[in-house]
């Protein structure tokens, strides 16, 4: 392998790529050539570093200098100063990594300090399109260990003892799943990877596929050995073109190296993989619907039992795990079940990746040991709420989950605690909401989502979510009655108890949890006909602040329905009957003399 004195790592995940990181790569290559140091320095395209809000991100090793929000025109200076003269360009560093005269490495800044990376271990560290780099970081060593020194039962036992639970949402014991499939009778078995990441607001699976595709391939090959299968499928969202491309390249390289296909590593073990694309149906994240989709049917769930471990894809025993679950496997094999089980809480071991989004400063991906509190995630790692606004709730579990209010910020996060709070881990989306978000509106948003994505097979979900959505819309329009709250609760209970699959059974959760913690907002909409957060348009009025109004008349000219009248010298007046609440006046008033409330 070539030796270089400096490594320039440039993020080519979806986030940074959309902020023009490919141009930055090109500029680096050009500038480095211009200075004639191309034999000393290498430029690598890597996966996601996690701090997407500050992309494009460039990390230069060995110093681990953390450059953020880099523009193509900054590259010339970085090469000239940092790479040629060895002087870090302070101005372009991530602000928090500069502390007076000392410069912190990426590992010491607040965002990364509390993180512990297992699933994301190689993301941002290696070039995902180069199998040699993966191998250099212990890649395929776990597969070798398993094939040459472990029996299939020992592999299953190791995963069981590690305490790893499914990272896709359900939280079922991974080892148990492997055990069921291994023990199921059948000549042909399948190993599936659920990469149909549907939870709006979660993107850790995409980052793993983009940043470290071989870790998933290797884990699936190990799973195949453990359960007795030689064919795997990765079911990936078609909305992730970069992930699909990198995965395709990785599979080809693994085949070339004899790490997939017949007689792997000379042991006689055979395993191969195929990618299948989803086509934009959220319900296909449900295991039986995903199986139906690969078979070429409408992605509708099937009743369980029989569970896929007994009768799955093409009627054969099938093991199905999610991307992040697989991303933990190789590390467990290499470091041992005890190592993994030493992290986390009593019933939730290891780490979990969360996608921080919404009203939070450091949006991006974080991997933290189970048991970290929500406060640490939001305020220490996440850097708090922008513009000094007040934290209202953190939403986890997407459309199947719920909101966690400020009073529960100090609860250690694990599967069981989140369920006790009326939410769930889900796949790890964590959306922060501030005082400007209306909880009735959020509940309506999620029900709109599940209503739209309900496959229509069972009545409780198809009809029930629609009725719940109608009631929420009625409340948001100010036409609600207090009895609607009871109706919502009643419907929710029935849907949860009777829907066919996880989508329906969890669809009422966003309503139940907002009712539990933010009932006052529902009451304000129903009784006072007010939206306290100022979101629900029908309940808003645009009002002129008399003291600030200079009677310039700009607002009246902007109003498309002539609802504003006035004359020189007296404050203008908005006729709330005529007003269509378009907001044109508010955005055009030069004196900020109009508010909505």
């Amino acid at each position, binding site marked *: 392998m070539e030796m270089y004195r400096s490594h320039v790592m440039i993020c080519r995940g*979806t*986030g940074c*790529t*959309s*902020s023009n990181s490919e141009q930055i790569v090109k500029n680096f290559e050009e500038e480095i050539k211009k200075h004639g140091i191309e034999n000393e320095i290498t430029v690598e395209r890597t996966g996601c570093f996690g*701090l*997407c*809000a500050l*992309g494009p991100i460039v990390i230069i090793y060995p110093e681990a200098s953390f450059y953020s929000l880099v523009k193509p025109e900054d590259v010339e200076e970085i090469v000239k100063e940092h790479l040629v003269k060895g002087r870090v360009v302070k101005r372009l560093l991530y602000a928090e990594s500069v502390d007076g005269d000392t410069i912190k490495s990426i590992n010491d800044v607040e965002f990364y300090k509390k993180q512990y990376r297992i699933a994301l271990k190689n993301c941002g560290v290696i070039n995902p399109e180069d199998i040699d780099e993966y191998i250099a970081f212990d890649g395929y060593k776990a597969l070798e260990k398993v094939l040459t020194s472990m029996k299939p039962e020992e592999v299953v036992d190791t995963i069981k003892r590690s305490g790893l639970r499914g990272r896709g949402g359900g939280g079922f014991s991974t080892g148990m799943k492997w055990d069921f499939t291994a023990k199921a009778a059948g000549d042909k078995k399948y190993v599936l990877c659920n990469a149909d*990441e*549907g*939870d*709006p*607001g*979660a*993107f850790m699976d*995409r980052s793993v596929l983009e940043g470290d595709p071989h870790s998933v391939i290797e884990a699936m090959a190990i799973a195949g050995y453990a359960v007795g299968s030689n064919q795997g499928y990765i079911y990936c969202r*078609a*909305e*992730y*073109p970069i992930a699909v491309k990198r995965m395709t390249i990785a599979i080809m390289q693994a085949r070339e190296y004899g790490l997939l296909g017949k007689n792997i590593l000379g042991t006689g073990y055979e395993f191969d993989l195929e990618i*299948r*694309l*989803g*086509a*934009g*149906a*959220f319900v296909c994240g449900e295991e039986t619907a995903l199986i139906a*989709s*690969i*078979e*070429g*049917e*409408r*992605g509708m769930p099937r009743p369980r039992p029989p569970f896929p471990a007994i009768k799955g894809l*093409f009627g054969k025993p099938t093991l199905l795990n999610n991307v992040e679950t697989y991303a933990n496997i190789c590390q467990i094999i290499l470091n041992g079940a005890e190592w993994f089980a030493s992290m986390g809480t009593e019933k939730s071991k290891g780490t979990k990746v969360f*996608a*921080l*989004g*919404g*009203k939070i400063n450091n*949006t*991006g991906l974080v991997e933290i040991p189970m048991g970290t509190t929500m406060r640490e995630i939001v305020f220490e790692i996440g850097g708090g709420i922008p513009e000094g606004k007040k934290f209202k709730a953190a*939403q986890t579990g*997407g459309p199947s989950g719920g909101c966690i209010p400020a009073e529960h910020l100090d609860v250690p996060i694990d599967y069981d605690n989140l369920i006790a709070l009326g939410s769930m881990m889900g796949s790890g*989306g964590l*959306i922060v*909401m501030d005082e400007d*978000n209306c909880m009735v509106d*959020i509940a309506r*948003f*999620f029900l709109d*989502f599940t209503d739209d*994505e309900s*496959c229509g097979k069972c009545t409780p979900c198809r009809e029930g979510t629609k009725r719940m959505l109608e009631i929420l819309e009625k409340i948001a329009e100010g036409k609600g009655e207090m009895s609607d709250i009871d109706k919502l609760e009643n419907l929710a209970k029935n849907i949860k108890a009777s829907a066919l699959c996880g989508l329906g059974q969890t669809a009422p959760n966003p309503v139940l949890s907002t009712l539990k913690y933010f009932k006052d907002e529902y009451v304000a909409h129903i009784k006072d006909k007010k939206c306290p957060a100022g979101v629900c348009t029908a309940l808003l009025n645009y009002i002129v602040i008399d003291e600030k109004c200079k009677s310039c008349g700009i607002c009246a000219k902007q109003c498309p329905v002539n609802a504003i009248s006035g004359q020189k010298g007296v404050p203008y007046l908005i006729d709330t009957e005529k007003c269509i609440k378009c907001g044109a006046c508010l955005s055009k008033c030069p004196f900020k003399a109009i508010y909505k409330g």
Partner: protein
Amino acid sequence: MTELEFKEKMEKLEEIIKDHRHQDGPLMPVLHETQELFGYIPEDAQKRIALGLNVPMAEIYGVATFYSRFTLKPRGKYTISICLGTACYVRNAQAIIEKFQDELKVEPGATSEDGIFTLEATRCLGCCGLAPVAMIGEDVYGKLVPEDVPGIIKKYRD
């Protein structure tokens, strides 16, 4: 699409069917490639797939209408997907989609009169760090404000 172009594409479809015929569960991959080839899944193509894969037309129609990525009507040259995932929603993606609606004079799900753009509200694109986000083809636009919209449309229209 002229008649000749259509005929050529139907010939390509033959190859697609041949490539996948012996695979397990061939329907989804064939529909994906058909959608890409024609920009939609025409009735003639459905008939051809039915014969080639030995699957009833009704089933193909059922599958093609179940998934949002498959369309039975021609799409615009560019599909503009506005993310309405949670992270984008709480960062006011609604204003972005409304601005696109205003500028293009189309409702979500429809194609502009000149046939260039299809506007679409989509589920999470996985770029939550850049919310609110839109995707055109494979280009992702992040941290959008409504004022960005006319410029983006212009880029593709020219």
